[in-house]
C-alpha cells in the first residue's frame, strides 16, 4: 500500500506539470491584453495610457519574454512555493488564495456531504422500489432538478427568498453578518449556516441526479447477484439483505465518483460565488481570468489541479477500503 501511494504521489508531479503547461499556454495565448487601468467596467473609458507605459509595464512583469522563458521562470518560483504577485493589486498570490480557499472548501465539502447523504439513500430506495410510484416520482423530480441551470436557480432564490419584494428568509450576499465577529460561537455558527444555506443548495441539487442514478444502478446490479438470492433464500430479513449484503457492494462505483465531484464543485463555485457575492476562490479565479491576471490564474489552476489529483487518489484508496477484493499490494492485485 505504501509503495503504491508513493508511486502515485510521484506520478502526480509530471501530471501537474502537464496541467500547468497547458493552462499557462492557453491563458497566455488567449487574446486580450492585461487591462492595466485601461478602463473601468462601466464602459466609461478613462484609459489614456501610452504604448510606452504599457511596454514598460510588460517588461517589469516579464511579459515581453518568449512564453517558454516565462513558463520556466514561473516553474522556478513554484518550486519555492512562490506563486508570484497578482497583477491586480500586487499582493502575493498564495496569500490571496489562502484567504479565499477555506470558504470555498467549506461550501464544497458541505455540499459533497449533503449530496452523498441524500443521493445514496434515494438511489437505494429507488432500486429496492424499482418501477414503483415512489421510484418514478423521485426519478422525475431529480431529473427536473438536474435540468435547471444553477445560475437561474440562484437568481430565482435571490429574487424570491432574500427579501426586497417577496419572501425575506435569507441574506442576499456574503458569508456572515457584519457584526459576526461580536457573536458567540453558537450564534456565529448559525449565522454562517443562514448565509450559506442557499449557496449550498445551489451546489447540491444538480449533483444529486447523477449520484443517485449511480447508486440506483449499482444497487440494482447487486440485487440480481446469486448471493443476494442465497441470502434471501436462507430467510434473512429484507432489511439485512439490503443493508448488510447488497449495500456495501453497491457503493463501490459511488466511491470512485468522489474524486470527480470535487472539481465539479470547484467549477460550480465560479458561478455560485459570483451570484451570492461569496469571497471564495471561484470568484477570485473568475475575476483573474477577466483581468488576465496570469499569476492568479496559474495559482488558481495549480491549486485546483492539486486538489483534484488528491481527490482522485483518495477515491482510489477508498476502493481498497470498501472492496476487499481490490488490493494495491504489488504482485497481489
Amino acid at each position, binding site marked *: 500500500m505504501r509503495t503504491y501511494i508513493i508511486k502515485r504521489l510521484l506520478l502526480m508531479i509530471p501530471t501537474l506539470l502537464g496541467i500547468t503547461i497547458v493552462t499557462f499556454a492557453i491563458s497566455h495565448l488567449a*487574446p*486580450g*491584453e492585461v*487591462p492595466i*487601468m*485601461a478602463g*473601468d*467596467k*462601466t*464602459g*466609461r*473609458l478613462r*484609459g*489614456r*495610457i*501610452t504604448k510606452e*507605459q*504599457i511596454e*514598460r*509595464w510588460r517588461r*517589469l512583469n516579464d511579459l515581453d519574454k518568449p512564453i517558454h522563458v516565462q513558463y520556466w521562470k514561473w516553474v522556478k518560483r513554484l518550486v519555492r512555493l512562490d506563486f508570484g*504577485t497578482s497583477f*491586480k*493589486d*500586487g*499582493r502575493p498570490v498564495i496569500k490571496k488564495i489562502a484567504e*479565499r480557499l477555506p470558504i470555498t472548501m467549506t461550501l464544497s465539502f458541505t455540499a459533497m456531504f*449533503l449530496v452523498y*447523504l*441524500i443521493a445514496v*439513500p434515494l438511489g437505494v430506495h429507488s432500486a429496492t422500489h424499482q418501477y414503483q410510484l415512489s421510484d418514478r416520482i423521485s426519478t422525475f423530480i431529480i431529473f427536473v432538478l438536474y435540468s435547471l441551470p444553477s445560475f437561474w436557480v440562484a437568481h430565482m432564490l*435571490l*429574487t424570491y427568498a*432574500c*427579501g*426586497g419584494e417577496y419572501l*425575506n*428568509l*435569507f441574506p*442576499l*450576499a*456574503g458569508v456572515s*453578518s*457584519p457584526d459576526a465577529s*461580536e457573536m458567540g460561537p453558537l450564534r456565529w455558527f*448559525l*449565522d454562517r*449556516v*443562514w*448565509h450559506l*444555506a442557499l449557496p449550498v443548495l445551489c451546489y447540491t441539487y444538480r449533483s444529486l441526479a447523477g449520484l443517485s442514478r449511480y447508486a440506483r444502478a449499482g444497487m440494482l446490479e447487486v440485487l440480481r447477484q446469486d448471493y443476494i438470492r442465497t441470502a434471501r433464500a436462507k430467510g434473512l430479513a429484507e432489511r439485512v439483505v439490503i*443493508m448488510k449484503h447488497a449495500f456495501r457492494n453497491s457503493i463501490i462505483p459511488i466511491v470512485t465518483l468522489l474524486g470527480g465531484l470535487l472539481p465539479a464543485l470547484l467549477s460550480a463555485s465560479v458561478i455560485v*460565488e459570483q*451570484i*451570492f*457575492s461569496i*469571497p471564495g476562490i471561484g*470568484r477570485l479565479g473568475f475575476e483573474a481570468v*477577466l*483581468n488576465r491576471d496570469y499569476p492568479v490564474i496559474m495559482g488558481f489552476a495549480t491549486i485546483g489541479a492539486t486538489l483534484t489529483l488528491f481527490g482522485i487518489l483518495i477515491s482510489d484508496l477508498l476502493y481498497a477500503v470498501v472492496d476487499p477484493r481490490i488490493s494495491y499490494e504489488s504482485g497481489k492485485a
Partner: protein
Amino acid sequence: MRVVYIVIAVVAALAVGATLIGKHAKIGRPDDWLYFAAGGEPETLNPINCYDAGGDSMLRLVVEQLAKRDLWTHEWKPALATRWEVSDDGLLYTFHLRRGVRWQDGRLFTADDVLYTWERINVDPDVRTMARPDWEDCETCEVLDDHTVRFRWKKPYFLAFNLCARLNPVSRHAFGNATGKAFNNHQEQSRTPTGTGPYRVERWDTARRIVLVRNEDYWGDRPYFKRIILLFVSEGQAVFQLFKKGEVDSVGLEPVRWVKQTGTESFERRFIKVRSPSCGYNFIAWNNDRVWFRDKRVRRAMTHLVDRELIRDTIEFGFGYIITGPLFPWSRAYDRSIEPIPYDPEAAKRLLDQTGWIDHDGDGVRDKMIDGERVDFDFEFKVSGTESELATILQEEFRKAGIRMRIRHLEWSVYLTHLFERNFDATTVGESMGPDVDHYLMWHSSMADAETSANYSNFRNAEADALIEQIRVTLDPDERIPLYHRFHAIMHEEQPFTFLFSGENMQAYNRRLVNVRFAPAYPGRDVTQWRAVPRDQIDSSRPAVVVHELDLQE
C-alpha cells in the same frame, strides 16, 4: 438507514433554526453609519493609481486635494491649500498650504509631500498612473518653503490650474520614500492609505467591504456619519435588493429600474429617486481609415440611418439628450443651435448613391470599385456586453439601406485592446466629459497616428487640430467658447462619430437620509454633506421623485 434520517432531520432543523434566528437578528446598524455597495472591488486604494469608481469614491474621503471644486458651481475652494496665485503668463502656479494639517498618523503635512507626489506622477516612469499625459507640459514642482509649492509649466495650458489643484498629495514617510514598483505595490498604503481627509480607512476585508471611520482630528468640518461602509456585492440584482431591504442606503439606477421597478407606492414611501444630468455620453465610432467610412458623406448617411429617438425610447427608456458633438450639453461650450442630423433613410440612400456606393450586382448589398477592386459595403461592428441591443437595431436599419453589418461580440479585455489599437470598423462606446474638456487625446490627428490612443475614429482634420491647440493655450474661459463652438461645428460637419446621448445620472436613496444632492460632475455626490435622521423621524412627505436641473448656459 435510521442514522441517515436523523442527520437529515438535524440539517433541516439547523437550516430552519438559522433562518429564524437570522431573520430576527438585530444587525448593528446605527443611524450614523452609511452603507454603499459596489459591484467590483478596487485593485488598490493607492491614491495615485486607484481608478475604480467605488474605490475612488471612498478614497476621496480619505485623501484631499490642494483645492476642492464645488460640484454645482464648479468654483475652486480652498482645501489643503488656503490660497493660490497664478502668474500672468499662466506658467507659474503657487499654492500656499494650510498650516497645522496632520496626516492620519500624526505627522505634519508639508510641501515636501506635494513634491513627492508630483515626482511619482511625473518623473518616476515605473509608477502606474494615467495622469502622466495630462502633466506632460509641467516642468517642475518647487518647494519654496514648508508651506508653499510652485508648479512651473513649459507653456500655458488651460487645464494646468485644474491639474495642480486636483493633485492629492500622499505622504512621503508613510510610503517610506518608495519609488517605482515598490510605490505601486506598497502593501500598507495600497490597502489603508494615510490621508489628511475627514475619514480614514479602518479596514478592508478582501472581497467583502471597505470600512471608513471618521477622522476625529480632521482640520475641517466634522461630517455627520461616523462610519461609511462600501460592500462588495458581485451581483447587480443583489445590490438593488439590498437597497430595498434597507441594508444599503443609496444605489444607482439603470433606466429600466427607474421606469419599471421603482414606481410602486411601497417603494416611494421608503425611498426617493433623483435624476440629474450626467457627464457621460455615448457614440458610434466609425473608423475613418476604413474604405467605407473615409468619405464624410458616407458617415453622414450612417447618422441618417441611426434612429436616435427610437433607440432612446426603446433601449434607454426615453432618457437621454441627443447630442451633436463631444461637449457637455449643459455647458456654454456646447452650441445648441446645431440641430441633430435627423433619422432619414431616404436622404441616407441619396448620399450613398452620390458617393458611388451602389448595388451594382443586385445582391442586396451596395458595392463600389476601389483601386480596381469591387468592395462590398460589408463591415464589422464590435461590441462588448450590453451594447448588443443597439447593434441589432442598427443592423436591421442598415440592411434596409443595402449595408451589411456583422456584429462581433468580444470579451471586455479583448475589446479594449481592439478599441485602443483602433482595430475595428465600427463600434460603440461611452465616454465622459466635463465643462472644460481638452480634446487633444481624443481628436488630435497626432493621436490618430499613435499605436494606441483614444482617437477612436482616427480623425484627422487640420482645422480641428488648430482649434484644439488654440483652446489648450487660451486661459480665458470666455475666449474659449467661440473656439469650442467652431470645433463643435466641425464635428457636426465631419461626423467622425454618430453621437448618441448625454445620459442621466439616476440614483435612489433611503428616506432616512437628508441633505442628499447629486451633481453631474464627477464624483457626483459629496457625502460629507449628507445626514441621517432616526428611523422614527423619517419625513414621508418629501416628494418621491426629484429632478435636478443644471444649465450652465443660462
